[in-house]
C-alpha cells in the first residue's frame, strides 16, 4: 500500500457509490441465523452499527479540519459512507428481526459517553489526533470484526452488504494511512512538541477516558461471540505495520502513541493498563441512563429504510 493520490481517490469515490436499495433485504436466507447465534449477534450488530455511526461523526469533525478542499470532500463522503454502513447494518438487523418495531437499537453506555464526547469536543480536536485514532478503529473493525462476522454468519444478504462495506473501508484505510504519513512529512510536519500538546488538553483526556473502555468493552463482546482474541490483536498489529511502513509515518508522534496504546490493549498482561480500564468499564456500566443528556440530533438521522418517502 503506497501513498495514494487523493484527487484520484476523490474521483473514484464519487463514481462508485452504492445505496441500500441496491440490496434485496427480503431475499431468502434470513433463517440461516441459528437460534444460538441470534442473541449474541443482536448485541454485536448493535455495537457495530453504533461504532460505524460514531466513526461517521469523527469523519464529520475531520472534514472541518481538512487542510485542503480535496481532503475536505473526501472526509465529507466518508462521513456519509460510515452512516451508510450503520444504516445497512440496521437493515440487516431489521431483516433478522432484531429491531424493536422501527426503533433504532439502544447504544451501550460506553458508546453513549463517546457520542457525548464527540458531540462536544470532536470538532475542536486537531487533524492529527482524530486522523490517527480513526484508522486504528477502522482497522480493528475491518480486519477483525467484519471478517469474523462473515466467517460466522451464513446469510448471503449479509455477505452482499459487507462486500460493499469492506470496499468502502479499504478506501478509508488507504486515505487514513496516507494522511498519517502526510502529517509526519517534512513540509507539513508540525513538530512533535506541538503535536503532542493536546495530550495535556483536558478535553482529550476525557476523550481517552471514554475511548479506552469502549475498546475493552468491544473486546469483551466479540470474545463473547466466539471471536478468537488473537484475531483482534492481529488486526491491530496491522495498524502498526502499515502505519509504520515509512519514515514519514513513523515520524508522526500520534502514530507512535496509538501504536503503543494498541499494544497495551492487546496485551492482557499489561495490568497497569487493563485493571483501571476494565474498572472504568464496570464503573460506566453503573452510570444510570437518566444521568446522560439527550442524544444529539445527528443520531436521529439513522434509518434502516432504503427509501425515504417524506
Amino acid at each position, binding site marked *: 500500500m503506497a501513498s495514494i493520490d487523493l484527487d484520484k481517490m476523490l474521483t473514484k469515490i464519487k463514481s462508485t457509490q452504492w445505496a441500500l*436499495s441496491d440490496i434485496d433485504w427480503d431475499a431468502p436466507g434470513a433463517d440461516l441465523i441459528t437460534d444460538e447465534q441470534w442473541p449474541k449477534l443482536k448485541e454485536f450488530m448493535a455495537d457495530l452499527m453504533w461504532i460505524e455511526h460514531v466513526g461517521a461523526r469523527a469523519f464529520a469533525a475531520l472534514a472541518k479540519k481538512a487542510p485542503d478542499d480535496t481532503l475536505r470532500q473526501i472526509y465529507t463522503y466518508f462521513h*456519509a459512507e460510515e452512516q*451508510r454502513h450503520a*444504516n*445497512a447494518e440496521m437493515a440487516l438487523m431489521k431483516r433478522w428481526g432484531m429491531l424493536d418495531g422501527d426503533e433504532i437499537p439502544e447504544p451501550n453506555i460506553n458508546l453513549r459517553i463517546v457520542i457525548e464526547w464527540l458531540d462536544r469536543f470532536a470538532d475542536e480536536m486537531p487533524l492529527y489526533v482524530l486522523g490517527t485514532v480513526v484508522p486504528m478503529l477502522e482497522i480493528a473493525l475491518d480486519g477483525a470484526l467484519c471478517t469474523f462476522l462473515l466467517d460466522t454468519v451464513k446469510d448471503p444478504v449479509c455477505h452482499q452488504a459487507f462486500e460493499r462495506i469492506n470496499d468502502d473501508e479499504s478506501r478509508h484505510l488507504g486515505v487514513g494511512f496516507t494522511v498519517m504519513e502526510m502529517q509526519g512529512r517534512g513540509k507539513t510536519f508540525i513538530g512533535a512538541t506541538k503535536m503532542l500538546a493536546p495530550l495535556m488538553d483536558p478535553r482529550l483526556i476525557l476523550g481517552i477516558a471514554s475511548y479506552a473502555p469502549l475498546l475493552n468493552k468491544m473486546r469483551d463482546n466479540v470474545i463473547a461471540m466466539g471471536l478468537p482474541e488473537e484475531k483482534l490483536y492481529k488486526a491491530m498489529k496491522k495498524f502498526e505495520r502499515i502505519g509504520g511502513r515509512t519514515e514519514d509515518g513513523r515520524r508522526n508522534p500520534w502514530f507512535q502513541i496509538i501504536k503503543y496504546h494498541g499494544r497495551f490493549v492487546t496485551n492482557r498482561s499489561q495490568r497497569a493498563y487493563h485493571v483501571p480500564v476494565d474498572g472504568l468499564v464496570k464503573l460506566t456500566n453503573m452510570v444510570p441512563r437518566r444521568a446522560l443528556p439527550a442524544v*444529539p440530533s445527528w443520531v436521529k438521522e439513522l434509518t434502516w429504510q432504503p427509501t*425515504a418517502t*417524506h
Partner: protein
Amino acid sequence: MTESTAKKKPAPRKAATRKRATAAKKAAAKRKPARNTQPVKPVSVLIVGAGFAGLGMAIRLKQAGIDDFVILERASAVGGTWRDNQYPGAACDIPSNLYSYSFAPNPDWSRSFSGSEEILGYIHHLVAEFDLEKHIRFEKNVADLSFDEKSGVWTATTDKKETFAGRAAIMAQGPLSNCSFPAITGIDDFQGHKIHSARWDHDYDFRGKRVAVIGTGASGIQIIPELVKTAGHVKVFQRTPGWVLPRPDFATPAWNKALFRKLPASQQAMRNLLYWTHESMALAVIWNSPLTRIAERVARLHLRRQVKDRWLRRQLTPDFTIGCKRVLVSNDYYPALQKDNAKLITWPIARISEKGVRTVEGIEHQVDCIVFATGFDVSHSGTPFPVKGRGGRVLGDEWQGGAQAYKSINVSGYPNLFMTFGPNSGPGHNSALVYMESQLDYAVKGIEKILKDDLKMLDVKEGVQRRHNKAIQKRLARTNWNSGCKSWYLTEDGFNATMYPGFATQYAAQMAEFEERDYETV
C-alpha cells in the same frame, strides 16, 4: 426627465407583463420579413440583450442624442434576469432604491427589497417611458459577432442566419442569463417533474407534493420559504452553507412614497444613504478586516437566534471567510428549514434515480418534483457566442486562461466593442446597477468619439490593457474572493475574472475618465 418618470406608476402586475409579452411577440412576428437578403446600412450602435444593461444603454444613448441603434433580444420580451427569474420569493437583495437606475427613479417601490414582478414592472416602465420598443428586435438570438476591419463594422448573425450591422457593438447579454440542469449522474432517469429556478414552471401545482430543492445559494434561500408554505414536504439538499445576514425588509409606508414623489431630492438622499451603507460593507466583504469578523459575528448571531439545535447550526455554519462567496440575506430561510414539512440534508448527492435523489448515506429520497436552484452557466474563459475581432482573432481563444479587458469594458483587438458586466466588474457589496451606470456612460463617451471623428476603429492599446490587468490581479490577490473557497467567481484554476477589487466609488472613478490616449484610432 427624471421627474416625469417619477410621476408615472410602473405596472408591476403579472397579467400586464404577460400581455405585453404577447403583444411584443405579435409585433415581432409582424416585423419578421427577412433583413438578411440585402446588405443593410449599419446602424450606429448594435446592442445585444434587452435586460437592465441593454435597455439602460439605449436610454443613455437617447439622452446623448444618439437614436440610431437596434437592440437584439433572443427572448420575446424584455427584462433579462427579472423576466427569467420568476420563482416564488424572487426578489433583489440590494434595496430597490439602489437597485434601480438613478436616471429613472421610482418613488413607488412597495418594499425595501422588491419582488421580481415589481422589478420587471419597472423595466417595462423604462421601455414605455423612453419609447424603446421600436428599437428592439425580439427573438433574435445572436450566434456570432464579427468585426470587419475594412469597413469598421460589426455584424451580428443570429441562429437563424439573419444579420444586423452596426458601427459600434454592445455586449449586454448578461452574466447570469444562461442556465441548464446540472450534470448530476442519472438526472435524465428522473420520472418526476424537474424545474430550474431561472425557468420557473408556473403551471405546476406544488400543493401536497414532495419536493427536493437542490442548491442553497441566493435563489435557493428565496425559494425554500415559499415552497414550505405550499408543498407537502420539502427536502433541501445543501452542499456548502453560505453566510446569511438578516434582511431589513419592510413595506414602504404611504407617506414615504408620497414624500419621494413630491420631493425627489428626498429619494436621492435615501439612495445616497443606501449607497454609502453598502460601500462600507466592502470593508467587511471584500477584504479581510476587523469588519469581516464583525459581519461574521452578526451572521452567527442571526443563526444562533433562529436555530436552536446544535447539530443543525453546525450544518448551517460556513467554513469560509464571509464574502468569499455571495453573502446571502434572509429572515425566513432558517425558520423555514425547521418547519415540520421541511428537512435539510447535507449528505452529498450520489445520483438522481427514477424516483428521487440518492445520497451517499445510502438512502433514496423519493420526491415528486426536483427544483434546481443550482445557479447559472457562467463563462470565465470563453464568450457565450463567438466574437471575432481584427484579423479574425477569436475572443474565446484569447480568454482561455481567464477573461481580461480594459476597465472591464473594452478588449484590445476588438475595436468599437463595449461590454457591460465585463471581466472584473462584478460588485460583491453594492448594486450591480451602480456599476452598470458607469459602464453605460463610459460607452457613450466612446461611441460619441467614434461618431464625431467618424472613426473606423477605436481600439484600446494592448499595453494599456495589460498594465490595467496586472494592477487588478495584484489587488485581487488580497481579497476574500481569492481566499481559498470555490465559487462561481473563480475559474477552475482559481483565476478571478469576475470581481472588481474595490469600492463602487473607486470603480466609478476608474470609469469616469475616458482617456483618448489609451486608444488607437483609425
